[in-house]
């Protein structure tokens, strides 16, 4: 559905996107991951035709963005990083305007607009001026705008940024639901978000793709250890000595006292060994009650540090 071939964008000497290649299949949800300034937004702006490439080509549904921009733009709904909203319009007026410029006319127009407003739950604010809406509502109006005209491709640049946790979950579920009928590219710098929604992840750093795989494979393949955070009612030195003696523990380190008469310890184990049971038995034998045991998932930063330090390039 989307083919990005050898796309490069230079701003003078600065290379924002450097020979990026990837394809997105029909009906797929692709996560676009990277730290700020990695080139996510630039790449999305290129796919949507907002800015041009210096080199390379982008094809959507077989149409080239440079040769047939209108055909491509008709097929894409874009939610940019900052939702492009007119503050002096009401939600209804704004969506009408978007329908006009996207050339959505006829009897279906009203019906589909109602459907979209239902979907993103903005029906109750339709008569309000956009400038008076909260950040969460603005984001949803932005999403509604992208959905108008029912484009087969959706490009969402950090769609959950600035939302409260409840709204984040709602929007994620909504995106998953949309993924059944649409091809979606979604950018984020939050790993759990991407692993919750996306079928495939592309990690980009300094304009280059450094990894591309399913979220499961990424965290499995990239992490070579498992980490736990423990809180034990024990004396620090004794506890550390005991834990370091358990087979499979690679590393243990005190993280200081956060609760009276306890100690917090970070434990790292080999990837294939589950040390939770041996930990429990060893500590209970020594009569050190475990007050908390929490597995620490690999964060984007961890994976990121790994892919960027090994300098592995995946095309």
């Amino acid at each position: 559905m989307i083919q990005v071939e050898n796309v490069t964008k230079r701003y003078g000497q600065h290379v924002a996107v450097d020979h990026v290649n990837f394809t997105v299949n029909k009906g797929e949800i692709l996560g676009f991951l990277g730290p700020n300034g990695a080139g996510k937004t630039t790449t999305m702006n290129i796919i949507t035709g907002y800015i041009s490439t210096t080199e390379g080509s982008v094809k959507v549904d077989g149409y080239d963005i440079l040769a047939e921009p209108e055909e491509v733009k008709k097929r894409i709904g874009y939610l940019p990083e900052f939702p492009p909203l007119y503050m002096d319009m009401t939600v209804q007026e704004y969506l009408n305007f978007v329908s006009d410029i996207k050339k959505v006319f006829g009897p279906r127009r009203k019906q589909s607009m109602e459907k979209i407003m239902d979907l993103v739950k903005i029906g109750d604010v339709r008569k309000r001026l956009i400038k008076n809406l909260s950040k969460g509502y603005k984001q949803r109006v932005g999403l509604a705008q992208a959905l108008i005209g029912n484009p087969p491709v959706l490009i969402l640049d950090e769609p959950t940024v600035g939302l409260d946790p409840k709204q984040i979950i709602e929007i994620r579920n909504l995106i998953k639901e949309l993924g059944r009928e649409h091809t979606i590219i979604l950018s984020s710098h939050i790993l759990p978000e991407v692993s919750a929604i996306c079928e495939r992840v592309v990690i980009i750093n300094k304009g280059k793709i450094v990894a591309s795989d399913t979220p499961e494979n990424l965290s499995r393949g990239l992490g070579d250890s498992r980490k736990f955070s423990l809180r034990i009612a024990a004396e620090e030195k004794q506890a550390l000595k005991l834990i370091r003696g358990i087979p499979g523990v690679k590393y243990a380190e005190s993280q200081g006292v956060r609760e009276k008469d306890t100690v917090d310890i970070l434990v790292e184990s080999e990837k294939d060994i589950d040390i939770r049971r041996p930990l429990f038995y060893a500590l209970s034998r020594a009569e050190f009650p475990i007050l908390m045991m929490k597995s620490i998932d690999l964060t984007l930063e961890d994976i990121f540090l790994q892919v960027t330090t090994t300098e592995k390039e995946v095309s």
Partner: protein
Amino acid sequence: MLAVFRREIKAYYSSPTGYIFMGFFLLICGFFFALYNIWAQSRDYLSVLGNIAFIFLFLVPILTMRLISEETRQKTDQLLLTSPLSLSNLVLGKYLAAVAVFGITLLVTVLYPIILSFFGTLALAEIIGGYVGFFLLGSAFISIGLFISSLTDNQIIAAVATFGALLLMWILGWIQQGMPTDRVSGVVFAVLLVIAAAALVYFTMKNIYVSVAVILVGAAIMTLIYIINPFAYDGLIVKFLDWFSLLKRYDGFTRGILSLSSVFYFISFCSAFLFLTVRVIEKRRWS
């Protein structure tokens, strides 16, 4: 295009902009009408139109400053430029909205000659011609303002720059008078023009060979003209500045002359600036 037009019209009247423009325009117009026609008991309405042209200096920037700069600043241009809407339709829609607000305001002032007509016979054809000229002059200034608005994402800068550009139009006549008219200065001026063109080509294409080619072709044409008709260089600066003198062409209208070539000139002037605006927006994508 119609969608953009409607949105802009709405934006003018959902903010103070439209009202400020109309209010000031009608205030000044009414003041001059009272002063020239009522107190002076004159039926010469054309001179009112001629005298109030200066209000464009202050009012056109108000009308045009946010047209495109605000879209860039609020990033709403991302919506417009990633939609199937063509750039020329976008620019045209915005331009026509500004022109429409100006046109509606101007229509209100038609009341004045109607009032005058109760007290005497008016030179109707001349007044219509005067209105046509006034409308064209305003439309041309609006096209300059629109163009400047596309160059920056700051409304204030757009307004001040538009004011400066219009002021330049006003003092163009005085500048002309101070310019030398001999052949040597004409040749020097032509050389400067060619160099400026080459520089422009260099900055847009970053290609030194093309720029050198522009200089060579320019030099060849200049030499050819000099051989065929050296008189062409006499007073070249004045002739060149004449091309940009909107007010000089407007003068004709206020004296009751409706010249088709002037009408054509104004329309081409607007089209040129609209075209440049489209190019500026287009170029932003490529840089």
